[in-house]
């Protein structure tokens, strides 16, 4: 296959076409057009599989990439270049992401046709799913930060819409608003990072950024207050990750996002969109390194992983457990980025996507079966479940696989990836030569979180599927699960892919290469940190035309198993990995064992621990008071003060300045003088009387509500900007 924009674009265009069709005529189609979306994503999956095949089975070099761009916006004037390109950037990571995203999305589409059946907005759900898939695939294919940002926002919108899908419920509306607003913080930072990068590179293409990083263009650049520009940009991009991937301290939106339908939680808030933040940080990894941000990242990741795991301990809502476990696992990925475990972080992204999607779908399957005839709602509370193993054997099977995977039990995918992150963290923070004392905490938190993960996941399993049914009526009403195409097949397929063999084996024949010791993994031979120094110049191509460079020849190239490490270092890494593997197996089984004792054997009383740590319990129940912090303190106090100040500025400075400065200029036009007192007095009365409510107050703070005032400020700013650049 020729790799041109035209040949790759269909990946994106199939779901987009499905979206357009469903958006406009979906309601008229049979089955409300769900098949359009499913066919679109399946075609897209096929296309992705083709690319994956070419890249992974045909070509082994980890630094091979396809990069095609065309000029989108050209506003160059003279020697002032201003060009924005769009294009594709495909390397092994992209290929794997494409396969993962389209595959998981396809299965979730199919599952949705079961789960959402009978919903009054059935067709609209698929419309959103298609749009979302478009956004995610586009983000993965993007070759520059700007188009990443565009798709990023597109996904944000879809997430917003899907969280608020049941907009009749007030909580759903609030949750969607909360998610949108919280991620907005990160998005704004991301935009700032784009601007900062643009100011140095003059382009936002990944390849250009890598080249400029290699040539040291960022060195000596200062953003503001002596902060190096590289650090600034890295931090801002990472802030985008924090927002999108729900890292500490912006993790508050993700649990609330579970208000959406379960398939959308599976797709968006577990498998793909939240992983997009991690993906972005991976793409920008060289910048993170150049900005000396890795320690910070590791800390954020470790804190998130541990903190979310602790909150998950006491959750009773099955989806909430999964939500916190998602945050925790994303924390692992970020920890992996921070400790320099690049390919392990990416691998965990992939494995997590698979098993977490499966977990969510299984939870969806469980929830869907448990119909409360009194409230006419589905039951999500684990205390009312129990013993469902016999009722839904397939769901149980799938969920068990995934639980083992996420807990880090050997021979499952989670072990393969998490163990390597933990091993690298161990090496980075404790056993390595460059480890400082302050780096010791993240690995410790990581292992603690691994223990907690195993514990709470098994707790969830035991509460749900084992023991005696605690709500008999509910149990009786639950139908026995039959093997059906759109319910169990996606689950079981996903469950199959939670086996570790897919990731650690030697699928491609390339696994004979030794990786840091004596293990064989195809995955790590294909994914490597971007080597910023070997990126070539690239040429632009006219959109849709054939690739002028001819067919891509995939060649097998040699792989350097040492990753450029010296013999001694490699040995240390190996040792650390061995210790890490042992430890993680240990903590995993320990967690499972304790859960077993607590919830199966009942020989340990959970209530005892709750009573003993009742303060902690309360803190966990309140999610460490983050919502209070944001709503009561930050918004109610801080932003309200800022609001008042701005209002005072609006009234006092801007009006007075204008009056005193302009009074004599146009006296003949001034026919409203005696109204002006009213203007000031009433205005200030009105504005001080304004009270602030909840979240959307944030948007009010910078608004006086008068469009014309904004317009004035805008014009003034533009005037002075033109003044500045022209004189």
């Amino acid at each position, binding site marked *: 296959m020729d790799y041109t924009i035209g040949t790759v674009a269909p990946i994106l265009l199939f779901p987009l076409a499905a979206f357009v069709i469903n958006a406009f005529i979906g309601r008229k189609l049979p089955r409300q057009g769900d098949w359009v979306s499913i066919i679109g994503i399946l075609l897209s999956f096929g296309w992705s599989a083709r690319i994956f095949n070419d890249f992974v089975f045909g070509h082994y070099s980890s630094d091979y990439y396809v990069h095609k761009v065309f000029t989108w916006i050209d506003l160059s004037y003279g020697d002032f270049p201003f060009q924005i390109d769009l294009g594709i950037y495909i390397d092994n990571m992209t290929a794997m992401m494409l396969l993962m995203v389209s595959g998981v999305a396809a299965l979730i589409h199919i599952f949705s046709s079961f789960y959402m059946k009978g919903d009054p907005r059935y067709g609209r759900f698929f419309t959103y799913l298609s749009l979302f898939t478009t956004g995610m695939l586009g983000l993965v294919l993007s070759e520059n930060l700007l188009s990443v940002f565009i798709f990023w926002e597109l996904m944000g919108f879809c997430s917003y819409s899907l969280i608020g899908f049941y907009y009749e419920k007030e909580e759903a509306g609030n949750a969607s608003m909360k998610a949108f607003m919280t991620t907005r913080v990160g998005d704004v930072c991301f935009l700032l990072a784009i601007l900062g990068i643009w100011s140095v590179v003059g382009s936002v293409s990944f390849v250009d950024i890598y080249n400029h990083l290699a040539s040291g263009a960022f060195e000596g650049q200062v953003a503001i207050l002596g902060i190096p520009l590289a650090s600034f940009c890295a931090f801002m991009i990472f802030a985008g990750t924090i927002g999108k991937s729900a890292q500490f301290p912006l993790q508050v939106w993700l649990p609330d996002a579970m208000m959406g339908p379960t398939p959308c939680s599976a797709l968006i808030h577990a498998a793909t969109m939240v992983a997009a933040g991690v993906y972005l940080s991976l793409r920008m990894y060289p910048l993170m390194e150049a900005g000396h941000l890795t320690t910070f990242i590791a800390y954020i990741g470790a804190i998130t992983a541990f903190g979310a795991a602790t909150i998950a301990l006491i959750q009773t809502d099955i989806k909430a457990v999964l939500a916190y476990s998602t945050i925790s696992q994303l924390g692992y990925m970020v920890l992996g980025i921070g400790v320099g475990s690049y390919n392990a972080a990416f691998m965990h992204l992939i494995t997590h996507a698979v098993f977490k999607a499966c977990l969510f779908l299984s939870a969806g399957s469980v929830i869907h079966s448990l119909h409360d005839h009194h409230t006419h709602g589905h039951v999500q509370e684990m205390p009312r479940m129990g013993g469902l193993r016999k009722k839904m054997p397939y769901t149980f099977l799938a969920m068990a696989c995934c639980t083992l995977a996420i807990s880090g039990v050997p021979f499952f995918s989670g072990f393969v990836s998490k163990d390597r992150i933990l091993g690298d963290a161990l090496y980075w923070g404790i056993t390595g030569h460059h480890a400082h004392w302050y780096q010791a905490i993240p690995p410790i938190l990581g292992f603690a979180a691994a223990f907690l993960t195993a514990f709470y996941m098994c707790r969830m399993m035991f509460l749900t599927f084992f023991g005696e049914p605690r709500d008999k009526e509910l149990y009786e009403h639950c139908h026995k699960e039959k093997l059906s195409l759109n319910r169990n097949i996606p689950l079981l397929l996903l469950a199959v892919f939670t086996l570790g063999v897919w990731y650690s084996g030697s699928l491609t024949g390339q696994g004979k290469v030794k990786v840091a010791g004596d293990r064989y993994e195809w995955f790590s031979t294909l994914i490597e940190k971007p080597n910023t120094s070997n990126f070539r110049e690239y040429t632009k191509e006219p959109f849709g035309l054939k690739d002028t460079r001819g067919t891509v020849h995939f060649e097998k190239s040699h792989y350097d198993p040492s990753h450029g490490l010296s013999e001694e270092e490699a040995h240390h890494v190996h040792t650390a990995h061995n210790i890490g593997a042992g430890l993680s197996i240990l903590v995993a089984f320990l967690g499972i064992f304790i859960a077993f004792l607590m919830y199966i054997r009942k020989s340990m009383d959970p209530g005892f621990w709750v009573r003993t740590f009742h303060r902690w319990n309360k803190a966990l129940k309140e999610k460490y008071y983050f919502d209070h912090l944001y709503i009561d303190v930050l918004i109610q106090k801080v932003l309200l003060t800022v609001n008042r100040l701005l209002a005072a500025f609006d009234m006092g400075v801007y009006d007075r300045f204008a009056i005193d400065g302009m009074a004599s200029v146009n006296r003949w036009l001034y026919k409203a003088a005696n109204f002006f007192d009213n203007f000031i007095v009433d205005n200030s009365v009105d504005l001080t009387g304004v009270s602030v409510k909840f979240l959307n107050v944030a948007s009010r703070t910078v608004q006086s509500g008068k469009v014309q005032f904004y317009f*004035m400020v805008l*014009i003034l700013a533009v005037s002075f900007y033109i003044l500045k650049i022209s004189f």
Partner: protein
Amino acid sequence: MFGLAWYLGIGFVLFCTGITVMIARKSIVAILIGIELILNGAAINFVAYSKFVTQDLDGHIFPLFIIIVAAAEAAVGLAIVIRFYQIRETIHIDEATQLQS
């Protein structure tokens, strides 16, 4: 006398008048009128540049599309104004504050 500068000047005056109308007038319809003036000021520049600088007809296409967009904009904008009036019984711009809180 009547070179490029003249036309740019006319366009500029229209533009500034439009901006002032947008800021000064309190009726939403008047603000839309101001937008029309701004658009026309810009369109004059296109035609003037096409005559005096580029000497081709692309400069005639742009005002054409500006006119089209302005018509569409006026249509939608006025529809919003009418709807707003049905809800609030006024077209005073400072009353349009529902999105504020």
